[in-house]
């Protein structure tokens, strides 16, 4: 059997992390194909429902990446995301979903290498956690 390849949705903020992922591209830094990126203006835009929808529709992991603290293009959106994601993780645990399936990271526009590292690490971690199975009983 083929090795399990986790499917990851990545929400990246436009100003830091999306630009960091672009830099990984222009620098040709290789990382696994598992992540599919959705651009948002700010990590502060990420509603818990985006994460839950991703997991419900079969994502094995969700990465949210924003600017480093103090560097948010909108001053404090990343702090808000941080708080929300921490709370959501507690809730996920109650629901029986491994909270490590949701990962919040900081990647700046100049951290192409870091972005690739983050993706690699997350893929490895999700391989250990295994595929998601959210069975909805009828």
């Amino acid at each position, binding site marked *: 059997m083929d090795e399990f390849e986790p*499917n990851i949705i990545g929400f990246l903020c436009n100003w*830091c992390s999306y630009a960091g992922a672009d830099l990984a591209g222009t620098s040709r830094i290789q990382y696994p194909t598992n992540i599919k990126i959705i651009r948002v203006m700010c990590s502060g*835009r990420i509603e818990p429902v985006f994460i839950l929808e991703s997991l419900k529709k079969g994502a094995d992991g969700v990465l949210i990446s924003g600017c480093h603290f103090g560097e948010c*293009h909108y001053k404090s*959106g990343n702090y808000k995301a941080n708080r929300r994601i921490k709370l959501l993780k507690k809730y996920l645990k109650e629901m029986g979903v491994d909270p490590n399936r949701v990962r919040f990271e900081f990647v700046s526009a100049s951290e192409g290498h870091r972005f690739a590292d983050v993706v690699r690490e997350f893929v490895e971690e999700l391989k250990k956690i295994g595929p998601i199975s959210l069975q909805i009983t009828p």
Partner: protein
Amino acid sequence: MNIGVYVCECGINIAATVDVGKVVEEAKSLPNVVISRLNKYTCSDPGQESIKKDIIDFNLDRVVVASCSPRMHESTFRSVVEETGVNPYCFEMVNIREHVSWVHSNKEKATLKAIDLVAGAVARAAFLEPLERKEVDVIPKTLVVGGGIAGIQSALEIANNGFQVYLVESSPSLGGRMAQLDKTFPTLDCSACILTPKMVDVARHPKIELLTYSEVEEVGGYIGNFNVKVKKKPRYVDIEKCVGCGLCAEACRLKGKVLNEFDENLSKRSAIYVPFPQAVPLKYTIDPERCNMLKFGKCGSELLCVAACERDAIDFNQEEEIIELDVGTIVVATGFDSFDPSTEKKYGYGESPNVITGMEFERIANAAGPTEGHLEINGKEPKKIVFIQCVGSRDKDGNEYCSRVCCMYTAKQAHMVRDKIPDSEIFVYYTDIRAFGKGFEEFYNRVQNENVIYLRRELNDFIQIVHNGSAVMVKAEGHPDIAADLVVLATGLVPRADSKDFAKTLNISQSADGFFLEAHPKLRPLDTFTDGIFIAGCCQSPKDIPDAVAQASGAAVKATIPLAQGKVVIEAISAVINEDLCSGCRICEKLCAFSALEFDSENKIMKVNDVVCKGCGSCAAACPTGAISMNHFSNKQVIAQIGGILEKRRSLIV
């Protein structure tokens, strides 16, 4: 709903790693897609034309382009669709180059990923809504931050274009680092001779308001309408009255006792001072850290400076002032700091007066400097001089970048030593000579022919400078020890210590090395990610004077464009409140970092000021009733995109 999908080969940039034909085919089966095409270069004229033609032929109302990063070409394609009658917000871009072909090598997997991403974009496109962009008036004024050569150049160019400029400089005088230099390479122009006339031009220009000894404290607003708070530090001297005669400094009780930072602390000044004789404005400033009166409330039995001033200009009651400026654009030209070599023990800097930095050499060599231009250390003329290159640069454990100017300023300084001390022995420890500019290689060759011995060493080779009585011993791996009278360290350029804080104030980014980050390294080197803020000179990266000047002129042009147009278009991505759903709980109010949400106490609902709203979406994410929707990033749009990406992948696995 008719969606057109355009997949780009980008030459082989995408096509080499992604089976683009397969992506085109898969896209055809996606909901609402009426046409799916392949382009060699979608951004080229034929590519753009094919989109325009299809919009008409197939009556497209949504367009999806799968090519490079939207940060590269989103605006290009938005214009294309807009020109053909489709609202620019009904365009969606898929990044299959930076996020797929350039970062993956497995073609099969990369192709599947590209298909998933396109499916996500098509699903999202179905929910895109036309939006109207607002036009706002531009305040026809620019703020230039930094009064070094880059700031001076920018300010003059903008003012000569007929627009009002505020030039803010934190030190008491214009001039910056260039004012400290003795000569410039490779032409050996006297630095002050070419700089000071420009400083005077700034001060006299009717369109430039000069704010020296002032700092930018806060920047709010957006392109066209920035509100800036500038802190004007107290000079304790009324600059309307001061004529710069200097009688106060002569009289100061601390005359000759205060380290002079302009001379790199190699000379001493009074507590009341001008940084250098050609300072602009030529107005005195009292150093609050050193003045007895300001520190202790008294200075001997009488205030000697006050007594000496015939114009009654000294005013110890002056206070800090906050000035508010409204400007349309901002040019940042805040310069650099010099690397501090005392952090690296091996150079022996700080232990022996015989080891100096490149900038200290400039001051010693300068006729207005601490030794009036005589090269001497402790009163003695050095006969054996060693220059060491790459100090604080090209260090994989520290500053990895090359500082770009040190090779040439060392060559210049070696030439100056030869000029001033013809019988001296001069050695240069170098690793690679980077003589890339106009006239640089020729100048380097000339210096080599002036009996300057260049000695090569590897960057990581052992080097140690040992204090040895009135001289120093330079021990370098692979070379005989040299007992030198003077060692000059070619210290590199580093980001200013306040760069991080100032980047925050301006809401701009820094690169990994700490210098300010340009919006695109090739095509937008003067822009930042914040519209209306431009960068010039060494705050962006180390550069020599001609490059700094060229960049400053460029930034001036960029900063003038919105002023000349008089209007700018503001991004339509903002929050919208559904009044029927808003319960008036006011949770969003506190979350908004820009105070764009206000409570309408009459109707008990929130209102958005869409010009102030920056579109981050923090409020929408928190709204408990779902009353706040984000234009262009609504829940429907994002959730559709998630579904599109994940569902397609499923079908491929099965």
